[in-house]
């Protein structure tokens, strides 16, 4: 189903209402910046240097200390949301995974745009795809949805490279929503750590398919990796299925444990479940 489908758009509107009900009173775009600015909220003092805005000299402090100091305030700025959407071939097997990833990204972007935040779309596979430049305002929702809707699965997963390319653009620190199945042979920890080190806040949305979590026993299969082409001969007997389930459980625990350890949000989105649930969990935690 297209992201521009009226039914999906209605679901986005409902999502916005749900988000508003939860965060009633929050002003649009009122997110505290890590940079100090000119808002009314005092942050600190610093010595006055020639060229500084004389309107910010704290005269009361001068009267007591006989030194010119400037009053520093917490800057109020709009939030940058980077939608890092995995479009590797693994999201295309089955196709419902990429569809779910698009919906999650669309939901996040919609909430951000209606809140006057800046949103950009960064599709990636083995390299960064066509980036949608940052947009802002509710009127740009359509542009975002069209950009997401046009994404197609293909290529291998290389999150490290995608993060490197993102950071190479020297973008403003912000929320980096990584929507992926995290099936990266090179791992996900290093690129996510790098985002954190660059003062970004990664948010992890893990897209999974039920058959990946709990395969149906029975049958002899030659499993082919959609990204690497690797072939694995498997007979889905009880032992094999049990071993696979243990591996899946370990992988999920490892990923959620990593996020918890670094204070990151981790939301699992199954293709057969409502994507709004994961978004609302995130919004409640934000």
């Amino acid at each position, binding site marked *: 189903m297209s992201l521009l489908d009226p039914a999906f758009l209605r679901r986005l509107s409902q999502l916005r209402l749900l988000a508003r009900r939860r965060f009633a009173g929050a002003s649009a775009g009122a997110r505290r910046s890590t940079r100090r600015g000119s808002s009314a909220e005092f942050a600190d003092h610093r010595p006055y240097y020639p060229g500084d805005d004389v309107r910010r000299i704290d005269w009361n402090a001068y009267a007591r200390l006989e030194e010119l100091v400037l009053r520093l305030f917490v800057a109020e700025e709009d939030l940058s949301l980077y939608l890092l959407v995995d479009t590797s071939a693994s999201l295309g097997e089955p196709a419902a995974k990429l569809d779910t990833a698009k919906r999650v990204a669309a939901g996040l972007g919609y909430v951000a745009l209606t809140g006057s935040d800046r949103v950009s779309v960064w599709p990636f596979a083995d390299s960064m795809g066509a980036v949608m430049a940052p947009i802002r305002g509710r009127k740009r929702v359509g542009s975002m949805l069209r950009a997401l809707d046009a994404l197609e699965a293909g290529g291998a997963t290389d999150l490290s490279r995608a993060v490197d390319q993102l950071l190479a653009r020297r973008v403003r620190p912000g929320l980096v929503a990584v929507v992926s*199945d995290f099936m990266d042979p090179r791992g996900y920890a290093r690129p996510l750590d790098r985002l954190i080190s660059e003062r970004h806040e990664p948010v992890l949305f893990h897209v999974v398919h039920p058959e990946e979590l709990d395969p149906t026993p029975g049958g*002899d*299969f030659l499993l*082919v990796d*959609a990204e*690497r082409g690797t072939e694995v001969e498997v007979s889905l007997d009880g032992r094999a299925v049990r071993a696979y389930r243990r591996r899946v459980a370990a992988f999920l625990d490892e990923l959620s444990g990593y996020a918890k350890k670094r204070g990151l949000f981790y939301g699992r989105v199954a293709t057969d479940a409502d994507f709004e649930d994961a978004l609302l969990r995130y919004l409640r935690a934000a």
Partner: protein
Amino acid sequence: MSLLSPWSLAWLGLLVPLVLLYVLKRRRTRKVIGSTLLWEAALRDLRAERPWQRLRPHLSLLLQALVLVAGAIALARPAGAGQIPAGARLAVVVDASSSMAAVEDGESRMDRARALARSYARDLPSGGAMMLVAAGAEPEVLAAPTADRVRLESALDRLDVGGPGADLEAAVALAAERLRDAPDGSRIVVLTDAAITGTIPLAASVPVEVSRIGGAAVNHAVIALDVRARPAEGAADRADVFVRVARYGEGSGDVRIRAVTEGGAELGARRVTLEDGAPLGVVITADLPPDAAARGSFVRVSVEPVGGEDALALDDVAVAPSPAARRLPVFLVGDAPGAVRRVLAADREVELYETSLSRLAARDDDAPVLDGLFVYCGEAPDDAPPGDSVVVAPGGDAVFGVALGAPVERPTIVSWEEADARMRFVRFGDVHLGAARPIASASVQPLLTTDAGPVIASLARPDGETTIVALDPADGDWATRPGFVVFFRNLLERARHRRAAGGIGEGALGAPLRVPVRGDGAVVVRTPSGATRRATARGGVAVVAVPAEPGVFVAEVDDRELYALRHLTDAEESDLRPRAVFARSDGGGGVATVEPVEHRESWPWLAAILLALLAIEVLWGTRRGAPA
């Protein structure tokens, strides 16, 4: 070593599909998934969990091929090495008594013994020889030591159940004698149901192995039968059928006892409950009139369990002559002494006909055969008539070929044959004889002997017997003594009994019929089941081998029919429970009985299981397959 089932080597053909299973790739469904990373890790886990190192495929194939070859060879039943050494001899002694006809689990003990003996024959090693001895009442070598399996098979085909009794001791001794100089490793195998009471000493010169066949089968049997006349008012032919039946086996059971005439007329039936080891007597009263030839019919009694089991059929039927046969025609020939005439006429069951030699000689050849007891007084024909006869005070120098001596006055009685039925209750202690003629022939059996020699004797012939009384009873005081009357009544009773038995001497179940025949004619015998047996007489007797079958055998000889009764009525034989104790004849201890070992038969089963498991393993490992 030989292969008993060489065709089982066909299992080696499985090598082809076995190799193919390794050569052919397993057909798998190709399925593209997002990532195989977790599957690869899971399969690594599976391999790590295995307690043993996975064999390389080629080694696995080699091992499986070896197992297949071993299994196929096992199915081919290699034999010989574990049996008797090459060149040694094996004597198989098979109990051929009636109890071996007992059927258990659908198979008779004899069939089981025959199959075991056949397996021994098949298992003979190269250079080995086997002999087969049937242990009946008399041991019989069915096959001398031979390696010729055709001869052994032929001998086994002739091995069958005989009458009561198995002289295992004599049979083993006979086999031991044949194996006396046999190489080391030779031995005797006795196949018996051990349904014999007592201890049986077995020859110790050759190792003996006793294999017991059969178990404690339940059996019901007729162990005695007699039919006695009991004339009643208005029922002169009434008789009592005395039957004694028994159950051998734990517990109790109901049986139906049925009495019929040999012609099929129903006489009566009873239903009784039998306890183990407690024989029960039953009396069935019936009217048994004689037939047109003044002969009585034969009474056939059968016992049949009601809803129970009965392992042996041979003892379920017994036959006996009916009392009507007691009406004995007696042909008094010549001038009989008054005492003789009186004693014959006094017997109410004697139909006395007085005649003479000349009248007998004048009879037409087509006239009916006179069937009865001939009593010749003074003169006798040159040849004895068929059947029984008595010659009293014979004249001439000989009677029926038996030479007579000159008359001796008042000979002193020396002895008499008390054991003979004719001399039963007869005493000569105070008897004084007049003139008597000593019977000077070794071919007779003396019954009364004087200091001059035998004066009363019995001459046995194939077709009858003649009692020669070489004295005049009236000459002396014998005719005035009760013993004289008893003697003639005994003669009549004996003749009546022999006639009632049909003219052929009694014999045990399965014993051959010795049919008296004039000349060397042919004899046809009908068995109770309707089969026929033929034999040619030699020396006046035709020996007809008949099956161990209870009932009335009818022999057609010359222009008459003779009858022979055969039944078991042997409590010892009807008790099928193993109880014999075997011991070494040299006092060297007991000989243990063992169950027939079926190890050769189990190997094929084990091998088949082995092959089945192998097939499953191969199928699982190459087609269904553990994770690669």
